[in-house]
């Protein structure tokens, strides 16, 4: 590879660019408010990250395969309602957990089946199921909210794990390692990139495109169910509006992480950095300026800015070639 200015090297690696920005923000934050970097405080605030992270990592794979899943938030709503109703009628957390998981798998299978069989663009299918699932959750629950699932459940899914990191955090670490391995070392990772790059050619090359897609969206349903459990345990409440806005937050993180929205390329590491960047920026913006709305403004600017900068640098590199 050619030498080149640091800028060009950064442009070649999106992760490096994100890491530099993240380090800059953390350095600035540490300079202005030294207590911001305290490990305990960071750990405590990281709890709100875990549900999003879980789904974002799954979404990375979906986007790499050229798809998108807008229905994740709605699946969370439906799963939460399934959990609540099952718990109310049986008073058993175990049974409710199973119901929640089954609902997630069912929704995922519904998405995957429709996408694989009708071959309609996933954006449209999941737009439809997003409305359908959320509507079902609202219609079934009629605005009711369920709570008091017991301390045991709370501890199992939102409690403290080893090293002071929440259970959700450990689930995330495990998932990140598994998915990153799948993506880089297994043939399924190859297939994902192949389908995302050129679906027709992938089909000609014997890639089981339909099965792959079905599995992906099924997996998204399952991850959404897991995220629901963590979120329900954290708030000790199950409502139809669980996971509202989740889809956009997750897609923001994935895209910020350098995964191509057109499919074909992307990494789990990028998504993790994207998530951290959004998380830290939000935390700092809201704690330093003490204005809550700034979080949204900063995240919006970050998303547009990072993608625009990346596009500009990419063009620059191409021109120099």
């Amino acid at each position, binding site marked *: 590879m050619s030498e080149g200015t640091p800028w060009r090297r950064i442009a070649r690696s999106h992760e490096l660019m994100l890491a530099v920005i993240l380090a800059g923000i953390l350095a600035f934050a540490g300079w202005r408010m030294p207590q911001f970097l305290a490990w305990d405080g960071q750990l405590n605030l990281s709890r709100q990250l875990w549900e999003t992270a879980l789904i974002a990592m799954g979404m990375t794979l979906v986007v790499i395969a050229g798809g998108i899943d807008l229905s994740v938030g709605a699946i969370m709503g439906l799963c939460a309602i399934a959990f609540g109703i099952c718990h109310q009628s049986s008073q058993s957390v175990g049974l409710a957990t199973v119901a929640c998981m089954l609902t997630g798998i069912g929704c995922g299978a519904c998405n995957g089946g429709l996408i694989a069989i009708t071959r309609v663009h996933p954006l449209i299918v999941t737009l439809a199921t997003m*409305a359908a699932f959320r*509507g079902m959750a609202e219609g079934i629950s009629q605005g009711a909210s369920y709570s008091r699932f017991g301390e045991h459940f709370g501890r199992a899914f939102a409690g403290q794990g080893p090293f002071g990191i929440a259970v959700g955090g450990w689930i995330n670490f495990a998932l990140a390692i598994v998915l990153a391995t799948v993506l880089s070392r297994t043939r399924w990772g190859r297939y994902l990139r192949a389908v995302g790059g050129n679906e027709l050619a992938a089909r000609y090359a014997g890639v089981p495109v339909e099965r792959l897609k079905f599995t992906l969206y099924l997996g998204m349903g399952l991850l959404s169910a897991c995220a629901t459990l963590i979120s329900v345990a954290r708030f000790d409440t199950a409502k139809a509006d669980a996971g509202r806005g989740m889809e956009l937050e997750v897609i923001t993180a994935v895209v910020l992480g350098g995964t191509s929205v057109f499919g074909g390329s992307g990494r789990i590491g990028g998504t993790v950095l994207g998530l951290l960047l959004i998380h830290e920026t939000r935390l700092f913006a809201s704690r330093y300026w003490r204005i809550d709305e700034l979080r949204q403004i900063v995240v919006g600017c970050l*998303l547009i800015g990072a993608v625009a900068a990346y596009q*500009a640098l990419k063009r620059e590199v191409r021109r120099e070639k």
Partner: protein
Amino acid sequence: MTRQDRANDPGRDSGDGSGNTAAGGAGSSRGSSPGSSSGGTSGSWYSVRSTWRSPAGGRELGLALLILAIAGVVGFHDPVFLTGVVWHDILVRCAPAIIVSCGVMIVVVLGDIDISVGSIMALLAALLGRTLSSHELQWSVWAGVPLVLLSGAMIGCVTGMLVTLGRVPSIIASLGMMTLLRGFATLAMGGKNIDGLPEAVVHASKTGWFGIPLGPWAALLVVLATYILLTRTALGVRIYATGSHPESAGNAGLPVYGLRIFAFCYAGFLTAVATVVDVPRLPKIESGIGSELELFVITSVVLSGVSISGGRGRLSGVVLAVVLLTLVRPVLTFLSVGEAGEKWTKAIHGLFILLAVVSDRFSATMDRRKKSR
């Protein structure tokens, strides 16, 4: 050949070359004419001979029949549903969505997408309240309203420039704008609700003329203007051409960037129009205004058969789709007394799109079988 032709275009749908909901597989009406017998071309059996120019196609017919059927069934169940009061209400409710959809549809026909309209509406509503309210700046209507309209167009212009000059994919640019503008809207509201808009504005929005409020009048005007723009002017042809094949459009010397920026501008402007005509109807302005507008609008556009990969779609379908989706909530209220039914609105919306998706697929397959002899 056609299949490859389509697959060549970046950003086209993947899969077997079928357009989005208008699933392919039909090709030419002449069964075995060379070159088009394999792979999908465009549209289903009903749209083989109709371009975007024709006023209506199979999808429009289906939507219209569905609306009539629903009205008939509910009217049979409860004749009150067929009275003027109910339809007056439906008309007023769907007016802002129709206005915004006209803009978003053009964006989608050009192959982009705009999911920031809801946040634009929130920010503009805040701007409207801040400038006109008797508790705030107390500007004249003739200064405040043009400012709001201009701001809407400017915001759209910014999104358009990000998408074209900044090369940020439109879904990301408008997602970022959506988050960002919602933040600005909340900031602009300053944590309180605004009321006390000038009497003239409120009157126009609530009562209007000849018994119909400003909203439906404006919607009628916007639909007419957009229809003429799309089918009777050179601009319309160029918009469809660019959406159909952006690369050729560039080679043919069409101002592709200009057209796309114009579309976002127009969508922003129409969002401002919708804000001005609809927001004063509400008792007070809050920061949550328009929070699900973008989804509603995109859902209508998709339901109407506009291809999300660009180049295809009719305005008549968009209007009918908005009416159909708006109809769901009052119908549910009528069928089951009280709030219980209303909560199912979204589920029905989702069902409609799924129905459209599956029926398209089904008709494409049936068409292939039918051609066998």
